[in-house]
């Protein structure tokens, strides 16, 4: 019994001492928001839509991000421009549902949708967390500087005819008699 009281008291005093000693350690807590937080470039935060190196929208509205999204918070509609490019007529992310898992980014075949190191999405009204395309689209290529989907894909668009994509031969002339 006496032994236990002694042990307990020593333990308590030791703890108080340790806590006290922490006041002389380097502080880990940041004074957010006065001090900014360092986030690694691969941090999975706010989602953006990027543009290809030519400055055109990268998203081709293939719907793969939407289907990969485990909380189904992405919704978009395909449309087609006069030059033959597919693009999303609207592209909506409900950030009040988003869990920042990055599945959309992994699914994206054109590097259009990317997660950025930004978590500052606080709003007073939940409705403000619904982002439309104009809120999502940025002006640069994001993390992937070079990829240009239409230069790889066989679909012809204005300015890139059949046979002009990477690794493509000139179109066949079906009416020729030569083998």
């Amino acid at each position: 019994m006496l032994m236990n009281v002694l042990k307990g008291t020593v333990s308590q005093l030791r703890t108080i001492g340790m806590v006290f000693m922490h006041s002389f350690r380097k502080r880990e807590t940041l004074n957010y928001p006065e001090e900014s937080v360092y986030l690694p470039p691969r941090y999975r935060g706010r989602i953006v839509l990027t543009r290809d190196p030519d400055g055109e929208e990268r998203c081709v509205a293939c719907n793969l991000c939407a289907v990969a999204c485990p909380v189904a918070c992405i919704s978009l509609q395909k449309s087609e421009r006069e030059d033959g490019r597919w693009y999303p007529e609207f592209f909506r992310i409900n950030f009040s549902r988003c869990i920042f898992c990055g599945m959309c980014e992994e699914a994206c075949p054109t590097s259009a949708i990317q997660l950025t190191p930004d978590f500052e999405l606080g709003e007073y009204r939940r409705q403000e967390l619904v982002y439309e395309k104009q809120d999502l689209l940025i002006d640069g290529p994001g993390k992937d500087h070079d990829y240009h989907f239409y230069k790889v894909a066989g679909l012809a668009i204005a300015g890139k005819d059949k046979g002009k994509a990477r690794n493509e031969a000139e179109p066949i002339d079906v009416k020729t008699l030569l083998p």
Partner: protein
Amino acid sequence: MATIHVDGQRYDVDGADNLLDACLSLGLDVPYFCWHPAMGSVGACRQCAVKQYKDADDTQGKLVMSCMTPASDGTWISIDDDEAREFRASVIEWLMTNHPHDCPVCEEGGHCHLQDMTVMTGHDRRRYRFRKRTHRNQYLGPFIAHEMNRCITCYRCVRFYRDYAGGTDLGAFGANSNVYFGRHQDGVLESPFSGNLTEVCPTGVFTDQTHSERYTRKWDLQFSPSVCHQCAVGCNISPGERYGDIRRIENRYHGEVNRYFLCDRGRFGYGYVNRDDRPRLPEWRSERDEGRVTLEVDAALDRGADRLRSARRVIGIGSPRASLESNHQLRELVGEGNFSTGIVAAEQRCLSLMHELGRSCGLPTPTIRDVEDHDAVLVLGEDLIQSAARIGLAVRQAAYARRESLAAERSIPAWNDAAVRTLGQDDYHPVFIAYPTTTELDDVCAANWALAPDDIARLGFAVAHEIDADAPAVADLDEATRAAARDIAARLTAAKRPLVISGGSLGSEAILQAAGNVARALARRACHGSLLLVRREANSTGLAMMGGEPLEWALDELDSERADAVVILENDLHRRLPGPRVDRALDAAATVVVLDHQRTATWEHAHLGLPAAAFTEADGTLVSLEGRAQRFFQVFDPAYIRPETRIRESWRWLHALRADVLRHDVGDIALDAVTHDCARRYPELAGIIGAAPGADYRVRGLKLAREPHRYSGRTAMRAHIDVSEPRAPQDPDSPFTFSMEGYNGYDRPREEVAFAWAPGWNSPQAWNKFTDEVGGHLRAGDPGVRLLAPRPGDYRYATAIPEGFRPRDGEWQVVVLPRLFGGDETSSRAAPIIERAAPTALTLSADDAGRLGCADGALVEMSSDAGSLTVPVRLDPAFPAGMIGVPAGLDPSLVAGGRARLAVAAAARSAAGEAPPPRAGGADSHADRGDRS
């Protein structure tokens, strides 16, 4: 029966099948491309290789193409064998060497057979480093988009288009690695079955252009089992919806009706459902000259009920394009004596006659699949491709089936397509067609006659007399017709299963009587034949069974002020009777209530317009021309994406209106209650309850899912309206949910399948998982119940044989020629159909044109008592003289059987051919119907 051993397992299969067919029927996954259950095997793609062993002790084995190997008794094969696996993976890799890297921008992605097969064989890395062969695309019309780079040269497209559907303008060009599938030059695909290329093509070469503009992946569409409303055949379809719009129509497999194929009107004619000008709120005006105001549901019902309650007598005009339930509720609202079917008298007489013949001619009505099993066909007065296209395709298969019987004599299996076709060449089962002009089945028919309706009837009566001498003989028959009749009679009686097809397209009761006589004559000789009678609209058959007065009667009641209020259900009267006649009657009525989903000319007359649900937003039952009652289910809730809409099913509106008129509590009502009520009320329709399972149907305690389990965007698609998602819409009317929650599998048989999906099978080929055997029937039985059965009895021959047709001077007999594109009320409001429809033109014989002095394409003024019309003419050398063919959907003032005068239009003489011809299918404006004077 045969016993085969697959990977050591013993199975009993049908020995007449090939191994691929047998394995797929057993539920084993074997990849394939060129084989198609409806088209047999050619062994072109080498994808379905399996290892075959001599016997149980053979360990060496050899690779065979399972589609080209019979499933004979004692076959030992292995699908899982390493060598076979590797072979199949290599085949895919070769096929993919030229495939463009464009799945994200491909309208096939997500329901692509090539994707499925690539995943199934395990090919996932491109090793081929060299250049890809490319092709240029073609413009193929408003229905089909072309992207030739995706082709894997399986030849399915041309095999379907040319060999199955009889098209001529799609072919294979080039050789070896350059093979190209397309037309000889850009242009609209002519075949009315071109839409099936989108499902037949295993990859994205041919895709649905009507869907492309606002494309959605298959997994993102909400489906329901539905029935095509564009004609009376009753093909099963799966419409897919996204964001409140119907995006595409997919074929829904039905073992007895459409099986794998639809016509283009059914597949691409859905656009009217998405029109922006559709009424979406109740509209009201108390006097005709006032502007319309939109109302809430309760206010609209109250005002409508007030007016109907104070009316002396209310007439109800039903519709053959509305469901049985809606028509029934209307009849309940106005009372039996005040109900009109909304069908013009002449057509209704034909419908009643067809209904009577269906029971009393002694021959049964075949199902569409059954049509293909007949070995002699007589078509009287129907252009099947225009009036019931899917039946036309079935008749074509009936003609082709001759090849299979020839092959059977030489023990060539029916699935060996190339051999069967080479053997058969142009040898067809006899098909005889009598119709005023040429038809698209003429290339397979033994003989065809371009005759006036009365002469068609006389030919039919003569055939009946030749088959059975007791049938009345035709007086003053010319020798050529007699010889023709004798020939037809001989071929029909020689056949194992003769089929007689006729219908109401030409509006001639005499033709129907003649067809009935032929059927009776065949029945008396105890032939195992059938009689098929073609109706015009989706529910014409059902409405004929329900009964009611014709449309003219309803207008007369209003005209003569015996009634002062009218409720019109989903029916544009202006497309049935001359405009002035309809206007006069509607102006005489003190109250006009119109329920419709289209802003029609009749809607413009409404005091109260109630926005009805189109077939994609409603449930209901239709009776198809073979007497099959089939239920269609609501695809989506229009108020989910557009909360401001007040669209309701017509039967719901009418129920509420009736309760309001009677000052009852409206309460709620579900479909099952209305269907049961309807079945109780009309003894002939008692079977409709069994057309589909009721709302309490469950599979493993689950409702059935309308959405594939991958359905995306649930928490974002409505977030711009309100970030808090509402509860998913509830469906009290059917066993389906408006979500992916619920059963969507294939292992528990069920009749009603909203969409076909099985693990690894995203393309329409997934239907193989739902059928008892490949190309067979749904495992739970095919949906729908047949209501028509012949009643035994001693029936008399019809004796009213018309006189032969004689041209009159200065007067032409009007026949309305049905049109696939632009000929019906609803699909002719869809943009792609308007684009595809041929320019409106009157058909005139070359002789008459010479006499009139007009050339092909010249404008002609056609006038009758009811009005006049200036339209270009098309000269047809085969067309009988003394008649004028008016394309359906043009102007109801010139109905069949009437007579008209013709004159070369004055305007035409001065500016010949300069004015563009009026487009077909008046969708938006009355100007579309030609220049009325």
